[in-house]
């Protein structure tokens, strides 16, 4: 019964976070915090009423996301985060403070609630399903909650925690693919649920860090989910697509289908590895390597690249050492194997997830590392023909500096904050599953036996 009580705790804590999010909505101000390995981004959102759909029911301007506005944005170099997990809490806390303070200063408003996302902590996807005999009654919210609660939860291991548990598909009798079964009649109600678990320690560290900054956590999401939410366009989300968020420390993969995330994973390789390869290969400090990668990086060497000479610099004081140069082809020769390794690892994960079985094979590359020149060509060789580079959706008030692909998960988190998809804990837990006190248990025992 260990998993069961664990689930109840999770249910309560997630409901508490949802409550916090509701409070934040009432206050009208909420902060978005993307804790990445290379940068920490903080956006401050102001909600001015709910985003309305246009009269004809179609999604209006800005994909219906016009209910909020970004009023503050700040980015800072991440400290103490490796592979998307916090390794030095003090440093991370300071970095979060920096970002939050700058964003607050820009927004000129105090933020108390924060919705965070992170990419690491070994996300693992599970597909759950359950069936409920309806006895011919109409499906209501109660039945939906019941069928969700009756999902067989696998043993996902101690020290893991559920981050997302979203019903992705409902089926009534033989009709599958229902988005909303409420109000319909049938004999059996079946549900498919996607559950994402992560290491509990990583989540706890992040929660602790945010609490130490005097902020309340109003929601937590996987950055794979968030970046898929913002970088995939609506058709791709509907027809099936994979979003690959190439961050600094990790590369997150999320597969969307019928507007729901059905699979998420992460490869613990990212742009920082490319930088450290350059640093080691050329013998330059990491900061220089990062600069060289950003300005001169690429993955396809041409004849012109042999002639393009890059100063790799240095400030040792040794004239010969500080005037070293390298051709761009050499740089590409260092970067390409690592990029290929990352993409092949992603390919392996996609294959393991059964991505080739999806009707659409669209792959969208986003994240800071997706800006490497020529990456789309290389990716289409490794991942398949339908590859494009994705940028996050445009949202109100987002500064120009925060519209790049590196902000895909931050922007996705904005959308998540404004219109969260239904999770398992958004439904009332049926009475039988509530942890009753001793008295309640006695009463139930009495009632069951007489």
């Amino acid at each position: 019964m260990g998993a069961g009580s664990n689930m109840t705790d999770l249910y309560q804590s997630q409901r508490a976070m949802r409550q916090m999010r509701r409070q934040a909505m009432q206050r009208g101000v909420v902060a978005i915090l993307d804790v990445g390995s290379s940068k920490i981004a903080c956006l401050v959102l102001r909600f001015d009423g709910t985003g309305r759909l246009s009269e004809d029911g179609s999604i209006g301007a800005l994909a219906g996301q016009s209910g909020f506005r970004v009023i503050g944005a700040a980015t800072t170099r991440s400290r103490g985060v490796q592979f998307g997990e916090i390794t030095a809490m003090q440093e991370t806390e300071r970095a979060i403070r920096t970002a939050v303070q700058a964003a607050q200063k820009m927004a000129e408003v105090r933020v108390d609630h924060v919705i965070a996302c992170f990419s690491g902590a070994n996300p693992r996807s599970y597909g759950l399903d359950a069936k409920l005999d309806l006895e011919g009654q109409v499906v209501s919210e109660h039945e939906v909650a019941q069928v969700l609660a009756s999902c067989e939860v696998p043993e996902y291991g101690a020290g893991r925690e559920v981050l997302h548990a979203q019903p992705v598909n409902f089926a009534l009798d033989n009709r599958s693919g229902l988005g909303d079964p409420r109000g319909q009649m049938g004999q059996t109600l079946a549900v498919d649920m996607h559950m994402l678990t992560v290491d509990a320690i990583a989540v706890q560290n992040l929660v602790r860090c945010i609490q130490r900054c005097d902020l309340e956590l109003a929601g937590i999401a996987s950055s794979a989910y968030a970046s898929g939410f913002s970088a995939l366009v609506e058709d791709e989300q509907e027809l099936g697509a994979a979003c690959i968020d190439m961050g600094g420390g990790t590369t997150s993969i999320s597969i969307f289908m019928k507007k729901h995330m059905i699979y998420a994973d992460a490869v613990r390789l990212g742009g920082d590895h490319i930088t450290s390869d350059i640093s080691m290969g050329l013998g330059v400090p990491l900061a220089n390597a990062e600069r060289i990668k950003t300005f001169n990086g690429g993955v396809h060497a041409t004849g012109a690249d042999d002639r393009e000479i890059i100063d790799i610099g240095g400030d040792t004081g040794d004239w010969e050492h500080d005037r070293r140069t390298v051709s761009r082809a050499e740089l590409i020769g260092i970067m390409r194997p690592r990029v290929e390794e990352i993409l092949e690892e992603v390919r392996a994960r996609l294959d393991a997830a059964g991505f080739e079985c999806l009707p659409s094979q669209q792959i969208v590359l986003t994240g800071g590392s997706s800006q490497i020149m020529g990456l789309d060509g290389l990716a289409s060789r490794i991942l398949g023909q339908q590859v494009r580079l994705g940028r996050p959706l445009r949202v109100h008030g987002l500064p120009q500096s925060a519209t790049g692909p590196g902000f895909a998960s931050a922007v996705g988190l904005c959308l998540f904050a404004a219109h969260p998809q239904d999770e398992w804990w958004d439904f009332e837990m049926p009475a039988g599953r509530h942890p009753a006190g001793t008295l309640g248990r006695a009463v139930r025992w009495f009632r069951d036996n007489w």
Partner: protein
Amino acid sequence: MQPLKGWFRKPEEGRCDPAPSRLKYRLQRWMLTPGIRFGLRFGVPFCLVFAAGAAYLADEGRRDTLQAMVNDARAAIQERPEFMVNVMAVDGAGTSVAQDIREVVPVDFPVSSFDLDLEQIRDVITGLDPVKTASVRIRPGGILQVDVEERQPALIWRSREGLALLDENGIHVAELGRRSLHPDLPLIAGKGAAKHAAEALRLFAAAKPLGPRLRGLVRVGERRWDVVLDRKQRIMLPAGNPVRALERVLAVSEVQDLLERDVAAVDVRLAGRPTVRMTENSVENWWRIRQLNGGGQ
């Protein structure tokens, strides 16, 4: 491993950590709190000004000085010649009434118009008997203009105290020394007659055909009217609808010369039974004539 005791370490040259200290961070959040912002922007200056004011006024002498200063400034403005009122003009009142008004209005000219309570002056003037309405205003040029409408006497009321003039509503206008001062006004008498002056006036209007024969009206028992004519004739009117009864009597009189005959009283108090009382003299005559005519048959 990075050094754990970070606070002993000096920031490295050229790469200082942009992170705010925890205190600085909290302070900034505190300053962004709406209540605190409002308090700092408005509350603190207000408190400072209030405290300074209170400290200054804590001293009795300063308070008095300030009060005196305010009073002086006030007086200086009020006593400017533009605001001074020098004379009172009374329009629409007769000499004696004007004299009365000047007596009752307790103003010593010249006086500042700020000190005049026009409302109260008006009430005092309206309180005088002969004054019906009064309007008081300050005219440019420093004149207190009093426009008075006098009550017009409509009736003379003879009572035990003497003669009094009443207006059409029965309100006392003035004492009257002699009847001959107002020979044109009709006369009423009796207790409570003044309260029914309007009715009396209607009766007088109806009694116009009687001409100079009419002496006056007498209120009887505070209930009904008697019309008194010369030759001590009386027409006794009912309490209800006396004008109509009088008109009936006059109509009968016109046709049958009732009032020209030697009757002492015409009693129409009961509309269904009008009664005529003859004088003693005529009764005797009548008896004599009957004896002469037919020996009392």
